[in-house]
């Protein structure tokens, strides 16, 4: 009965949502303000990846918020689980030698790959968030395969905080020298499709990459550690 009512509610809701999207035919051209980003993006930012151009510059403030959200989540999780007496359910099994060795090899490679992603954020798909996540996955790999692996929490916190501060400071630099917060006119924009181009965008994405990497590593460790401590 409950299920039927729920399904009825949801179908009506879905009907309304379908009604809304039905006025936007799939795949139809419909530009709004983003036409400016597309047509003027290269001129104004020199970042090949227009999504990056939007994420970091045109809507860079959103990204600052986004970074904050992630930071907040990591903080909240660390806070909530700090004193959690969570019960352990499963026995840990020692990882095999193959796995350990493979992880040891993969670990630096993954970090390098992550760094590559966020350094090239303005040229290729991906950026700080994706790169950071890849770095975190490297940490995760080590956590899973090595009992003794324990990322330095202080270092993580410091990197995380510093990277965030650098993001804000770049914004401030724009405020002081460029006339407005996060303005992308304080560094030479360089040439299109080069690594050293797009003004502050790569710098910001690198900061984000470090921050997200440190944050997510910390987050995973925090969640994971609770289990570990009780063994």
């Amino acid at each position, binding site marked *: 009965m*409950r299920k039927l009512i*729920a399904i009825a*509610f*949801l*179908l009506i*809701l*879905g009907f309304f*949502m*379908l009604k809304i*999207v*039905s006025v*936007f*035919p*799939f*795949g*139809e*051209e*419909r*530009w*709004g*303000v*983003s*036409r400016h*980003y*597309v*047509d003027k*993006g*290269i001129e104004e930012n020199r970042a*090949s*990846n*227009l*999504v990056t*151009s*939007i*994420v970091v510059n045109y809507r860079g403030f*959103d*990204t600052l*918020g*986004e970074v904050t*959200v*992630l930071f907040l*989540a*990591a903080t*909240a*999780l660390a806070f*909530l*689980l700090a004193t*959690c*007496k*969570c*019960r352990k359910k499963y026995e840990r099994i020692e990882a095999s030698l193959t796995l350990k060795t493979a992880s040891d090899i993969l670990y630096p490679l993954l970090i390098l790959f992550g760094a590559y992603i966020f350094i090239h954020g303005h*040229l*290729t*798909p991906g950026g700080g*968030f994706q790169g950071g996540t890849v770095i975190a996955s490297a940490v995760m790999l080590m956590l899973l395969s090595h009992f003794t692996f324990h990322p330095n929490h202080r270092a993580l916190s410091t990197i995380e905080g510093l990277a965030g501060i650098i993001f804000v400071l770049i914004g401030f630099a724009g405020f002081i020298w460029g006339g407005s917060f996060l303005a992308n006119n304080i560094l030479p924009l360089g040439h*299109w*499709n080069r690594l050293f181009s797009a003004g502050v965008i790569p710098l910001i994405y690198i900061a984000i990459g470090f921050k997200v990497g440190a944050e997510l590593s910390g*987050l995973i460790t925090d*969640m994971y550690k*609770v289990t570990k401590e009780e063994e």
Partner: protein
Amino acid sequence: MAFFTASILLILIGLYAVLVKRNIMKIVIGLSLMDTGVNLLIVSLGFIRGRTAPIINVKDLLFNTSSKVVDPLPQALVLTAIVIGVAVTAVALSIVMLMYSKKGTLEIDEYKELKW
């Protein structure tokens, strides 16, 4: 249209879990399904048929770009939304873990101390 329908159905299935499932972990899973659906819907809304990705890596795209690429703005928004989604999920899971540590169960019926 198939994309829209599928993503809306995904949202609804996620919501269904929230409305009906008695297991709090399942509810959180439902919420994350919902997120996926929403993201899919937004990206589909930005899609333009026959266009390429908004990455200007060849000279040809430099000119008259708006007739050659899809709308990048929804993609940028979705990037933000995905990250926010994982952040919410992380906090939700820590709350679930905390709840479980209090009562040792994931059943929603055990968590009705606050009511009326």
